[in-house]
Every structure is written in structure tokens, then in C-alpha cells.
């Protein structure tokens, strides 16, 4: 077995993840290299879900009976855990949504319906980047169409970094909001938050950080980021599907209008008018994803017990090894940073002119699960003039042996289509 400094005890960790024992195609053990799409779930998270449903299931916030009090305590307790995980100044700044996409749409809609000074309208500008997941592009396109605000974006350099050379022209006095990803979901690039935040603050623009690919993999400290909003999603960080988070600065959440209306988000309702509960409840209409929040709380506990710094170190080791080994494969071209510096454990590549679909399919026959396509970041593919990439992404349970399996698999793909 390949020894790399910084690796976690994956043998122990993998025992927590039932799916990693799956076999496909007549007994081939799954090599799961698609954690950037969604992570696998440890037993501890599934236990928390079952425990919730079997013993404490009730609707939250409105019951005086024991089980309802328990359910409320579990749900709100999950909020405390998430707040601590991201070092939020206040638990009331943590809003539960269904996924990161809803979180980002929530920000866009709040700003569209806001009063001054936050209001996005036809005299203002919105800034994003060419490196974004569609979920951080389309909400802003919709907002731009609906308000007349101009949408601008940063381009990407040849080696997969944000091109900030024209930052002063892109972010101007007209900019109301700058929304960008902390870590690219297609190239793994880590983006320079500080420089963008500094410029945004200079012109008085708000900053929204899409941390969907960061929260699972590194220490996420919303205070250190100095952003105004931070969005991420539970299913990529060993949590359940159906739960996302939006963190927002308290005074903004107080000032901004609600988005979805309904039960739970109100203070008082009459047919003529309604008033709204304070944040975070103002932004949580209807019965929330209760079990999923509880599951996310358990996920955060799981990650914290291992330690986000240790997870990050593990992934850095794996990434360095994977970059090195992949570059040994003839005709393989990495799309994005071709080193292990300032990047996450997500590596996209092309393999000669073999279409990624074919690469993925032939790898699957060997039990290797990678993702192929545009990875919901089609502008990146357009930028590099390619239809799609093959993407391998690693997580705390990934091993050097799995990197080796991938490299062997790619050799087989090349022979197959030669």
C-alpha cells in the first residue's frame, strides 16, 4: 500500500460507510470517486435519522407535548451544531434550506425584493464568475432578467484560476452583490476570497460565497471569510439529501424581506396582512426538513470528531498523489490547476479524444464511479472548448489504492478505444 504523510486511518473510517462495501458488475468492489456530486453517509448519520423517526418524530416549534419538545430541541440543536461548525457569531444566522441551490436563490430573491440600500434594480450590477456551478449562475440570470440589473462575471485563466486582472472594472460602485464559489466543483480551484471581498467592501457591495465544495473539505469560518452570505449543502458533507444552509449576517437577515411565505415564518397572520418572525424563522416557511437537519447535525459531529484540518490534510495528500499519477497517463489533460497547490480533491480531465461518456462507462465496468459531463458548470467547458470532462473527486474515505485503480482503469479505457 502506498504510504503518504497526512493520510487518515481510512480503514477505520471506511467501516462507517456502508455503501463503500457495495459491489457492482458481478462482485467488483465499488471505487467511489464522485464525492463532489454527493458524499456517502456514515452509519452515525443514518442512526441519527432512524433515532429521530423512531423516537422523537413530531412537528417542531408548535407543540407543548413531550415528543414535540424533543423534536424541536433536536432540530434547533442541529442549528447550534452547524453554527459552531462554521463559527457563526449567532445561531440565528443559520437558515435551513433544502439545498445550496435554494440558499443561493434565497439570496437573489431577497435582494430583488429588498428596499434600499440592498435593492437590485436596473441601475445596479451583479457580479459572478465563469467558474460557477449553474446554481450560482441561473439565480442571478433570473434576477437580472427580472430586475434589469446587469450581470457581469470574472473569466478564467488557462490554468483554471479566476482572472482578477480587471477586478476594478468588474466590481464597481454599481455592484450590489458579488457571488462566487470558494472551491470550483469542476476544477477544484480554491479562489482568493480576500482580494474579492476587499474590493467588494470598497464599493459597498455585498458578498455571497458558495461554499458547497468547501464546507465538506476544510475549516469553514464565516467570520474569517468576511462575507455577507455563505451557502452550502448537506449531502456533500456526509449529511442527508434534502438539507442546505444559508448563513447570513444578522443585520442583513433582519432588514431583508422574506422569500417563501407560510407556516413557521410568521409572527401573526390576518387575511389583510401578516408580520414575520425574526430570522432565521422568517426564511423557513412550512414544516422544515426536520430529520434532515438532525442528520446534518450528526454529520457535522462526525466531521468535527475527525477534525476538518485532518480531513483537509488527507485530501491534500490524496490530491498530490492523484495529480502526479494522472499526469503519467498518456494523452490525459487536466482541466484546471495541474498541480496540488490551492486546490481541492476534485480533478477534471480529458483523455485524448475519447468522449468522457465512454471513459465513464468503461470505468464503471471496472467498478470505478467517476462523473462525466459538464458537471453543472458548462461555461467552464465552453471556456476550454470541450464538450465535457471526466471528473474524479476524493473525500475523507478515499485511498491511494483507489487512485491507482483509477489510473489502471484509464489505461484500460485507452486500450479499449485505441
Amino acid at each position: 500500500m502506498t504510504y503518504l504523510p497526512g493520510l487518515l486511518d481510512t480503514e477505520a473510517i471506511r467501516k462507517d460507510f456502508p455503501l463503500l462495501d457495495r459491489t457492482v458488475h458481478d462482485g467488483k468492489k465499488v471505487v467511489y470517486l464522485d464525492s463532489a456530486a454527493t458524499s456517502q453517509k456514515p452509519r452515525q448519520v443514518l442512526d441519527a435519522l432512524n433515532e429521530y423517526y423512531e423516537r422523537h418524530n413530531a412537528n417542531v416549534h408548535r407543540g407543548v407535548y413531550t415528543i414535540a419538545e424533543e423534536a424541536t430541541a433536536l432540530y434547533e440543536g442541529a442549528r447550534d451544531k452547524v453554527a459552531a461548525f462554521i463559527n457563526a457569531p449567532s445561531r440565528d444566522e443559520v437558515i435551513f434550506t433544502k439545498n445550496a441551490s435554494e440558499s443561493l436563490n434565497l439570496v437573489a430573491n431577497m435582494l430583488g425584493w429588498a428596499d434600499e440600500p440592498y435593492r437590485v434594480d436596473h441601475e445596479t450590477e451583479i457580479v459572478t464568475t465563469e467558474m460557477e456551478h449553474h446554481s450560482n449562475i441561473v439565480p442571478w440570470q433570473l434576477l437580472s432578467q427580472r430586475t434589469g440589473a446587469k450581470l457581469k462575471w470574472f473569466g478564467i485563466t488557462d490554468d483554471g484560476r479566476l482572472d482578477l486582472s480587471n477586478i476594478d472594472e468588474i466590481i464597481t460602485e454599481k455592484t450590489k452583490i458579488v457571488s462566487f464559489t470558494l472551491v470550483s466543483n469542476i476544477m477544484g480551484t480554491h479562489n482568493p476570497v480576500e482580494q474579492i471581498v476587499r474590493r467588494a467592501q470598497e464599493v459597498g457591495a455585498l458578498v455571497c460565497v458558495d461554499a458547497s465544495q468547501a464546507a465538506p473539505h476544510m475549516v469553514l469560518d464565516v467570520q474569517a471569510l468576511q462575507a455577507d452570505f455563505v451557502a452550502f449543502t448537506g449531502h456533500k458533507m456526509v449529511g442527508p439529501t434534502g438539507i442546505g444552509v444559508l448563513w447570513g449576517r444578522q443585520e442583513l437577515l433582519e432588514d431583508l424581506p422574506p422569500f417563501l411565505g407560510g407556516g413557521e415564518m410568521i409572527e401573526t397572520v390576518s387575511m389583510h396582512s401578516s408580520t414575520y418572525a425574526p430570522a432565521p424563522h422568517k426564511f423557513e416557511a412550512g414544516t422544515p426538513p426536520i430529520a434532515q437537519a438532525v442528520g446534518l447535525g450528526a454529520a457535522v459531529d462526525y466531521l468535527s470528531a475527525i477534525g476538518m484540518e485532518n480531513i483537509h490534510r488527507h485530501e491534500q495528500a490524496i490530491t498530490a498523489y492523484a495529480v502526479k499519477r494522472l499526469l503519467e497517463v498518456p494523452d490525459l489533460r487536466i482541466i484546471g490547476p495541474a498541480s496540488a497547490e490551492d486546490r481541492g480533491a476534485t480533478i477534471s480531465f480529458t483523455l485524448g479524444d475519447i468522449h468522457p461518456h465512454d471513459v465513464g462507462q468503461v470505468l464503471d465496468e471496472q467498478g470505478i464511479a467517476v462523473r462525466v459531463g459538464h458537471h453543472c458548470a458548462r461555461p467552464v467547458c465552453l471556456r476550454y472548448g470541450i464538450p465535457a470532462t471526466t471528473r474524479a473527486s476524493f473525500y475523507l474515505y478515499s485511498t491511494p489504492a483507489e487512485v491507482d485503480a483509477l489510473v489502471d482503469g484509464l489505461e484500460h479505457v485507452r486500450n479499449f478505444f485505441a
Partner: protein
Amino acid sequence: MYQEVILDHYKHPHGRGLRDGDAEVHHVNPTCGDEITLRVRYDGETIADVSYEGQGCSISQASASVLNDLLVGKELGEAQKIQAAFLELMQSKGQLEPDDAMEEVLEDAVAFAGVSKYPARVKCALLSWMAWKDATAQALSEGKTA
């Protein structure tokens, strides 16, 4: 949680009804619809009256009655100490065992210790206290007290 003292205050509330005041507030507990309208009257630094009207459960009603008992006639500073002590008790999640010192300050209000175990009811117990705090701030800002 339903101590005899609480039930007594509920059935025979002290100082209920709206009388003259320097400031009036209306507070609502959105989870259950409990409402209170509360007025404070100051005589310099002294609380001359706390009058109130409202609808709500035994806990919120009894708590308003106890508040009236405890605060009327007190100096503002002392009243604030009592309010802080009551708040602390209610936020204790049943972990605070009232001792003699606390009983000295809170008198009948120590009976609410048990309520603190029920998060949904804590708001009921605090409704009138929050209203009082708010009304006092309003009276202060309008310069009604010294």
C-alpha cells in the same frame, strides 16, 4: 409545573385591568396567540403601577399577576434586578434549584422554576416581563421617569 401558587395567581390575578400609565405596549406570543397589553406608570424612579389586560394560558396570566406583585412600588434599578433574576430562572432549563437568596428576590415567582423545563412555555412565562421591559424603555425614552 402547575404549582399551587401559579394556579392561585391564575384564578385570582393581582392588579389585572388597564389603568393610567406613562407608556403602553402590546405583546404577542406568535406560537400560541397569547397576548398582553401592559401599561407602566412611574413616579420618579418608582414604579407606581403596572396594569395589564390580556388573554393567555395559566402560566402567562399567573406570571403577569406575580410581576404586578413584585414590581409595583419598587425602584427601577431594583425592578430590573428582579427581572434579570426571573429571566435567568426561566432560561435555566430546569437546571437551577431556587435557593433562599433567590427566593428573597423572586418570592412567589420561584414557583415558575418548573416551567423552565418546558421551552414552549417559557415564552408564556416571560410574555409580561418582556412587555414590562419594553414599556419601561418606552417610558424612559420619553423622559417619563427621572
